[in-house]
């Protein structure tokens, strides 16, 4: 299958509610991640690196920061005359539930129908991975599948309508469970779904006439015996962000060399909006250990086991440990932070001491001054 023949559809609002305060004023897609990225950079880069040329981004609510970040799609080379990136913001008077895939898709059905691509790949924003989707496309053709669902094996993410797949030795999906109660390792859907456009049009049309609401239950689960549904196991390192905790842990994973090697490489870079910051400046009094630091930071104090986003500053005498400082956060002199997530533009005034726990990081909301 030619990647050019696949239309990418990315949900920016996927599971917004699971991150609470972090998505109070932004979409899941625009949640900062890994020092310089936003979560949507991963699906967009995966699509582009796999050869997909046309991408639609569904934005139902809270999408100002997303629009600002994605813009014309230029950082992903998707600002094109032919194909390229299209933002698909909510424009109906009734607010659509961000998690209702059927509603979201029916609303953009004309966009999908007009596209010349024969296949559609649906993706979420809360799945962090650097994966070659063209392998999934080839898998789909080889299996002559109607639907291919990409899955991972591990602990089930705590997400609404999370699908669990039973996959036989031929990789065929024999059964789909929704919201299964288990703590064992399972094959859970990464919510990357490849489907022929004509079939998607029919399924969404039917779902609307029956007033179905759940893509997972009413489309995937109901059709598991009538359609050829196959499961494609994602071989690369990945993480599904389903809570503040997994968000924190996924960021901290990046301090491991193996994980960085998997997520960042020269041949399939993760693209993001360029900020043109200067390189990191380390002062005479700086001490920095086991940390990921983005451009534009000024480190005068001590930073350990932390992720520091673009433009953040740590003043003299300050100690930042096991923490995430988002864009332009400022930690004043002699302040001490442990297990804290500081959102964008936050300020910790001098000598303050803040501490959370690795299992419950303390979150400081956007633009708050402490």
């Amino acid at each position, binding site marked *: 299958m030619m990647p050019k023949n696949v239309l990418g559809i990315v949900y920016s609002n996927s599971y917004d509610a699971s991150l609470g305060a972090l998505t109070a004023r932004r979409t899941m897609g625009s949640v900062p991640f890994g020092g310089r990225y936003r979560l949507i950079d991963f699906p967009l880069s995966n699509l582009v690196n796999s050869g997909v040329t046309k991408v639609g981004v569904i934005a139902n609510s809270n999408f100002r920061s997303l629009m600002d970040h994605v813009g014309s799609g230029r950082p992903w080379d998707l600002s094109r005359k032919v194909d390229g990136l299209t933002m698909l913001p909510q424009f109906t008077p009734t607010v659509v539930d961000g998690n209702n895939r059927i509603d979201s898709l029916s609303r953009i059905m004309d966009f999908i129908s007009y596209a010349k691509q024969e296949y559609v790949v649906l993706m979420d924003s809360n799945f962090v991975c650097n994966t070659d989707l063209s392998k999934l496309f080839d898998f789909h053709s080889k299996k002559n599948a109607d639907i291919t669902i990409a899955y991972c094996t591990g602990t089930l993410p705590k997400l609404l309508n999370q699908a669990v797949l039973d996959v036989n030795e031929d990789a065929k999906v024999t059964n789909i469970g929704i919201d299964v109660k288990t703590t064992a390792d399972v094959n859970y859907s990464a919510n990357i779904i490849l489907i022929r456009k004509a079939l998607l049009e029919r399924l969404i049309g039917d779902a609307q006439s029956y007033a179905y609401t759940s893509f997972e239950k009413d489309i995937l689960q109901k059709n598991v015996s009538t359609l050829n549904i196959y499961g494609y196991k994602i071989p690369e390192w990945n993480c599904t962000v389903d809570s503040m905790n997994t968000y924190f842990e996924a960021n901290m994973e990046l301090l491991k060399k193996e994980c960085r090697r998997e997520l960042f490489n020269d041949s399939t870079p*993760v*693209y993001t909006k360029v900020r043109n910051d200067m*390189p990191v*400046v*380390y002062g005479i*009094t700086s001490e*920095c250990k*086991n940390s990921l630091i*983005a*451009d534009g930071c000024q480190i005068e104090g001590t930073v350990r086991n932390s992720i520091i986003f673009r433009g953040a500053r740590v003043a003299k005498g300050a100690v930042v440990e096991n923490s995430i400082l988002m864009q332009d956060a400022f930690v004043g002199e002699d302040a001490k932070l442990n297990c804290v997530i500081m959102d964008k533009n936050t300020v910790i005034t001098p000598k303050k001491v803040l501490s959370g726990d690795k299992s419950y990081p303390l979150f400081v909301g956007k633009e708050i001054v402490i």
Partner: protein
Amino acid sequence: MAKKTECIAMLLAGGQGSRLGVLTKNIAKPAVPYGGKYRIIDFPLSNCVNSGIYTVGVLTQYQPLELNDYIGNGGPWDLDRANGGVHILSPYQQIKGTEWYKGTANAIYQNIQFIDRYNPEYVAVLSGDHIYKMDYAKMLQFHKDKDAACTIAMLEVPWEEASRFGLMFTDDDDRITAFEEKPKNPKSNKASMGVYMFTWSKLRQYLIDDENDPNSSNDFGKNVIPAMHEAGERLFAYGFEGYWKDVGTIDSLWEANLDLLNPKANIDLSDSTWKIYGRGNATAPQYVSDKAVIENSIAAAGCEIEGKIDYSVLFSDVTVEEGAFVDYSIIMPGAVIKKGAVVQYAMVAENAVIEEGAVVGENPEKCEDLEKWGVSVVGAGVNVGKNAKVKAQSMISEDVKEGETV
């Protein structure tokens, strides 16, 4: 015909920069990396955009491949425009034959047609090898206020350095009364920065006259400006205050990089109102490991730092392994400093590899003969073998074998 544009800029980027030796072996001087993530040309280009000049002709001649590739459509500087934008202007074939750019003035002369398309009132002529942040709009206003034919940006330099520059004498109204080119005993400390603002109708005529003069070397400083001065044109000096450095030599390039670590040097690249733009690649944030010690340094995205870094500038994707020591040095993109290697008072160019235990450069404080001390340079892609030694002032363009001293 393009839309009429009040002021356009012509950026002289054809120089070889032979004094930079191995650093300009395959690239033009303006493409030389600077400051952790920039190239020299980012400064004049960003100054243009920040000053509201959106039409820029870049005159290239020497090894233009990398420079052309880097500038591309000008997108990173916001210079991909429907009207104007950045244009690469290389020498071209004409009916009377093919001619290289013979001098700075001839380079502009050969592109009169390009300039005329925009029918500008004013043309800024800039050089592509200086590090500075300057608002050309203010200089243009000064030029208009003085009703000048040519305005030259001027910097008051320390008297002891004045003899290295082209100097100007001015009256109370800042009008230039005389020039002095690199005199032994300077009587002025007002140095020309190589930044010119011309009234195009005037410059156009002087360029044609200069071209018709067989004895001219077709240079702005040597021929065109003196000719304008002799003819009694209104020449003014526009005083500039701030950081400015010609990075034409190894020492000055090294110093200019380290100036970024010196708060007194007055070059602040973190100023969000005057950003310096550059073409970035999509590299991950840098990682600093448990074993790393990094102080008073600048490091760009994609670096993996496990060694000790002091008073140095690391460009993107540089690897410094455990136990390695980088001191007073500039490490360009993709270079690798392996375990236990020492790089001090040196510049290491792109993708060079310093193998385990090798020592590049010498500390002047431990150097017996200071006359022989100087910054060491390792060229792009060069491999310095295990336990090899690169002496002070050495400039390496070929691989150094294991244990060898050069």
